[in-house]
């Protein structure tokens, strides 16, 4: 019995010693957090590709310092994102962390960032509103739009162009879809659109039969905001149930990670309007060169990089560009680096991006419609661009904050 403990403790001591992180002067340690497990596993994989692309674009070095990358995995639950961040920062000694991917993870990482003032956190693709709108953290930078920004202009498009006067909403039940649904409903309800039912389903739901059965018959369309495997499950079950309502899609539901999935379920997406920080058929040179760089670096990847590859790429690109500007200087709690990062005007695959005073991005948003190409591939075809959308959707900050925290019942749409 005693030997058992001796073996155990000897093992512990060896591991404890091995744990002391090695610091070197000529490298900068990056950490990346993405959902490599759970319902968003495919999206997380895309996120990491984005990070790798940006680092490869700089040849792996900035200002003569080598960039090293450690990857942490989460499963869209806040606890797992925190555990991954702790390992990257406290064990691997990351100076700059890119991530996470999912909304509630972002809120948790923002709170964790406050406890690590010496580390700079750049959001990956998480898009909950309050991560930066209320009570932001000094060292948390979001070079990505939040969910409400993602769908800027979609409410108008749905009501005016598509002519849908009432929609039922099916969305996952957490901070990010609340934000996205708010961004859609705010203009839609203002114009006179009605939302008789909102179905909030738990993240990772596999069986949608009860939801599908309760969708009212008199709505004109269904507004769907489900990501990853949730979207694929809903679409195939809705098709099998004989559902024939037209769809309106929140950005993640018509992301390339779903459009390029196998099976026939996605076919009902053809013709669906959406808004997103990416449009697959965008002819802007910055986007097309990003696409070809992606295809070259990841021959096994998606046919066209997804929203998540782009957003992680942009965050990493922003960090590397700012690092280059300050010549790799991370001294004084990264003060110079953070100042450069805040002031940056960045040319990205999604147009020019810059940050507001809460370190939240101002960006172009693309309205598009899903079409089938001659090769049988589904892509989002650009309709128009909504230029430079900010977090308050064009309202002044006071008016916007008065709408209150987004949630299951806000906005009310009465």
């Amino acid at each position, binding site marked *: 019995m005693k030997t058992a*403990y001796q073996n*155990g403790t000897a093992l512990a*001591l060896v591991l404890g010693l091995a744990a002391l992180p090695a610091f070197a002067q000529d490298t900068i340690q990056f950490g990346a957090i993405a959902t490599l497990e759970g319902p968003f596993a495919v999206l997380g994989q895309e996120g990491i590709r984005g990070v790798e692309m940006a680092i490869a674009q700089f040849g792996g070095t900035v200002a003569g310092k080598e960039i090293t990358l450690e990857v942490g*995995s989460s499963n869209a639950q806040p606890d797992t994102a925190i555990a991954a961040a702790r*390992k990257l920062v406290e064990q691997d000694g990351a100076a700059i962390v890119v991530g996470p991917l999912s909304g509630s993870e972002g809120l948790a990482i923002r709170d964790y960032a406050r406890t690590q003032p010496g580390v700079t956190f750049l959001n990956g693709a998480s898009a909950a509103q309050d991560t930066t709108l209320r009570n932001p953290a000094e060292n948390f930078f979001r070079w990505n739009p939040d969910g409400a920004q993602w769908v800027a202009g979609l409410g108008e498009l749905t009501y005016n162009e598509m002519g849908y006067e009432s929609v039922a909403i099916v969305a996952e039940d957490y901070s990010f879809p609340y934000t996205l649904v708010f961004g859609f409903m705010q203009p839609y309800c203002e114009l006179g659109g009605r939302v008789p039912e909102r179905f909030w389903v738990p993240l990772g739901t596999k069986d949608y039969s009860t939801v599908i059965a309760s969708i009212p018959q008199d709505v004109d369309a269904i507004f769907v905001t489900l990501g990853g495997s949730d979207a694929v499950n809903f679409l195939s079950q809705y098709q099998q149930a004989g559902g024939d309502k037209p769809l309106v899609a929140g950005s993640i539901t018509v992301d390339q990670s779903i459009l390029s999935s196998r099976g026939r379920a996605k076919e009902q997406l053809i013709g669906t309007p959406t808004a997103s920080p990416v449009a697959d058929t965008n002819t802007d040179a910055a986007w097309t060169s990003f696409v070809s760089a992606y295809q070259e670096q990841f021959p096994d990847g998606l046919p066209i990089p997804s929203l998540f590859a782009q957003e992680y790429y942009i965050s990493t690109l922003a960090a590397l560009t700012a690092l280059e500007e300050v010549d790799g200087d991370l001294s004084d709690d990264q003060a110079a680096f953070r100042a450069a990062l805040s002031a940056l005007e960045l040319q990205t695959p999604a147009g020019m991006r810059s940050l507001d005073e809460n370190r939240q991005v101002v960006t172009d948003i693309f309205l598009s419609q899903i079409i089938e190409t001659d090769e049988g591939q589904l892509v989002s075809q650009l309709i128009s661009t909504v230029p430079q959308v900010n977090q308050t959707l064009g309202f002044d900050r006071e008016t916007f904050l008065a709408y209150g925290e987004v949630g299951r019942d806000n906005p009310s749409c009465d």
Partner: protein
Amino acid sequence: MLVLALVLIPTIANDFFLVQIFAQAAILGLIALSLMLLGGWGGIVSLSQMSVAGLAGYTLAILGQSSMSQSLGSNSWLAAAAALAVALIVGFGIGLLVGRTRGIYTIMITLAIGVAVFYLANQNYAIFNGFTGYSGIAAPHVLGVDLRAPLPFYVLCVSLALMGWAGVAALGRSSFGKALIATRDCERRAAAIGFHVGRHRLVAHTIAGLLAGLGGILLVWFNGRISPGTIGVGPMIDILIIAVIGGMSRPSGAFLGAFVFVLLRTFAIDLVDPERFNTLIGLVFLVIVLTSRDGLLGLLGKLSKPERRKMSPRLKTLEREETS
């Protein structure tokens, strides 16, 4: 030897190892210890120990202070005491529910309880705050020392784990423990001698509830938050995995299992492709379970005494039960 090592660890390990590895292993070990008590000695495999821990954690979050408006904001110690009381009551209640069932039926009922608690927490907004749960929960300060600072938290978790371990070990030597083991080995014979089998099991469930509740409170202080993801089916199974790979024959197995589990979950991603590390974790668990019938405890026993293949007396009774 063990205590000496635990005292020496803070001098060489960094903060990450103190908290993320050792303290976390102590916390998960405490919850797995409650399963070891039930399963190893009582022969009751319960999947709902994580749910007991979670309900204690939620009690702490709801009564104590957090950044959510639902929290009542009372004193941390008061909230912790209430959380322990809830864990005791829930443990007792589960004991009442499953007391008359055996084997696979106990597993099914406790699985159902665990899943029900998860969905309740996930979909109830008034009390459990749904998917988001509670965050911003701070550990209390004692004499100006923040209990969540790395070294104090390590000391807190490890000493509570040691106390739990010593307590369960003492329980195993007590007449109650012997009687519980007797009910596991042969229920009818124990009843014939005059032991009240149901009552012994009920007490075991209640004590296990207390241990799991303790782990739940520490888990909430550790994470600073609790949400349904903390008590989902995955974490429920994790506790079973910890108990099984550690070995169910002795209390130390729970902590050994927790230590290996935490190490693997933290560092597997560094060893293999980030997209495949869960496969490695699964393979290691498979190898442990396939090569040793009593988890790591059994493996270590084999390594230290290869020629005699000595077994603990308790394992022998297990063996006899299966061959008879």
